[in-house]
């Protein structure tokens, strides 16, 4: 639409407008500044809210000693499935907070507690006592009875939990999903490049 057809009305004389420009400009600047500050104040708690679970301090707190029950359930020379209720739990977690692990009793006071998760991509490994192997159903990772990597794509042996035996009960330190970045036992954390961590 041609500009000439519109007659500007009610616009102050140029001289008055020029005086008002600094104030208007200032209001715009102030407005932007206020909104930036408000936005940052608004965003910080939201980022903290969403990424709160990934704070290292919080996670370490969630790891705790938990009992797998009496040591008598795990006969010497055998490897058996044990389950525990995750120490960090919400009321609506349902079955997902029941975590399985493999307990290998070597001698009266010596055990190995393996995470269920294959070190390749976390699928549940299964123990075959006849051949003394753990096999993974996903991509065919295989481990020996002591958790050492036998074959397939896994980059290391099975993850192991730290354990202690107190009052005839077997305790493990657990509370976190085992991955290469979050191995349950720190003792093995720096051995990622080794084939076995037993």
């Amino acid at each position, binding site marked *: 639409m041609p500009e000439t057809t519109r007659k500007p009305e009610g616009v102050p004389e140029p001289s008055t407008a020029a005086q008002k420009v600094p104030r208007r400009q200032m209001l715009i600047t102030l407005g932007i500044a206020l909104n930036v500050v408000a936005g940052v104040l608004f965003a910080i708690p939201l980022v903290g809210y*969403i*990424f709160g*679970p*990934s*704070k*290292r301090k919080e*996670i370490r707190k*969630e*790891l705790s000693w938990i009992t797998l029950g009496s040591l008598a359930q795990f006969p010497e020379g055998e490897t058996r*499935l044990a*389950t525990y209720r*995750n120490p*960090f*739990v*919400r009321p*609506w*977690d*349902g*079955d*997902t*907070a*029941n*975590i*399985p692990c493999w307990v290998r009793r070597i001698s009266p006071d010596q055990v190995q507690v393996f995470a*269920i*998760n294959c070190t*390749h*991509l*976390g*699928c*549940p*490994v*299964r123990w*075959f006592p*006849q*051949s*003394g*192997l753990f*096999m*993974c*159903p*996903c*991509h*065919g990772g*295989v481990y*020996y*009875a002591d958790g050492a990597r*036998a*074959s*397939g*794509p*896994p*980059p290391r042996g099975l993850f192991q939990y730290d354990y202690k035996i107190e009052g005839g009960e077997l305790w493990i330190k657990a*509370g*976190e*999903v085992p*991955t*290469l*970045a*979050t191995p349950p036992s720190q003792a093995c954390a720096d051995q990622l490049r080794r084939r076995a961590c037993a």
Partner: protein
Amino acid sequence: MRLIKDVAEWFDQRLQLGKPLKETMQHPVPRSTASWAYVFGSASLTVMALQFVTGICLAFVYVPSAGQAWTSLQVLNQQQSFGWFVRSLHGWGSNFMVALVLVHMVQVFSFGAYKYPRELTWIVGIFLLLMTLGMAFTGQVLRFDQDAYWGLGIGASVIGRTPLVGAPLVHAMLGGPIIAGETLSRFFAIHVFIVPALLLAFVGVHLLMVLKLGVNEWPMPGRVVKRSTYLQEYHELTRKDGVPFVPDAFRKDLVFSGVIILALVACAALFGPFGPKGPPDPTVVQTVPRPDFFFLWLYAALALLPPQMETTLLLVGPVLAIGFLIALPLISGTGEKHWSRRPFAILSLLVIIVSLAALTQLSAYAPWSPDMDAWSSTPVPPKFLKGRSALERTGAVVLQAKQCRNCHALGGEGGRRGPALDTVATRLTGDELVRQVLQGRGNMPAYGKNLSPAETTALVAFLKTLHPANEAPARDSSLVGVVAAPQTRPDAPSP
């Protein structure tokens, strides 16, 4: 009739949308684009709209709680009227949408439509593809069953391979230290609020650009895209040989969308909803997790990649692939559009399609996964046992009991992780068999600690019988002169 017209006019006086809408609908497009090759984008849009509808319907009943989600899916499948059908529509709709988006992308690529001035339309399209795949993955998580649980475990394991920030990323993804209640809530928010909102916004921009820049004309060999002349040439084309989008181009979109919806309804009604499989109870370890159809290629790639380069490829590969797709129109934004003048582009496309299809097809029988039950459920076929000595038959029992069949097939049955054993005696001599069994090699674990000498003797005696009747077993040439007697009995019946 008159009343309807009056009411319509009343609204239009206030909304003033009638004229611009009509202009948009009737905007001229090149006659060549009123083609059946141009219907996949609109069909994707149609299916997306249906996904919104069925998704909202599911939210009426579905409970995004780790403890209850699986039960609410059972209620949807078994008790809610048409609950199974809505789930089925949503599940099949997801497959249809991924398929249509991929076909649309292949069409756009082969027609060179990503070139000037439609580079940004392509880039936005790449994000739409990623969001579609993201919806498919998060949707699989919301079907909170065993596969969803272990699928999350795989996701966590992949992310856990990131150097330095692996642990915080795993916890951010899971919303806590383990796969549990907050993981599901997190994926629910992503699947139901975040990605759909982004999808709507990006689809809006995508469509706006299609309107502003016009539908890509049918490419002709020799019609080269130049930044200086293209816009003018395109306008010339639509002016001289253009047709109104509605109805000339739109009717094929309309028909195809109708066919797609009917096909979707038919699939949903005939094949039913996907799962849920077993409940998400990690203590049930007798499970064989499998991803949904459109992620099977990834599952195959993860099994077949050389382990030492896996982490690098897992973390760098997607960045490079997505980066390349985004950069594509910026690298080759001008030049020929016709496929016959872009042999390298078309060949690359074919290689990608064939690779993805081959990986997907391989996943159908997953030769890299052991058959976890073969040792107890798949006996040695009788033909391998007929006429064998007691020692050899004992060896067959050892073969079953030691889970060899989980990885080795006999008579076409059993795992395919290792080679089939039907003719193993023609490849390995007795000594080599003993060494292979006890020490392992390649992908085979060593059985030295788990076989007694007697078991090994029996097992190898059985394995030495596994050769065709008319083919001699392998022998060690250096021993031929020393051991005069043949290694197998001449009267042994053929397997």
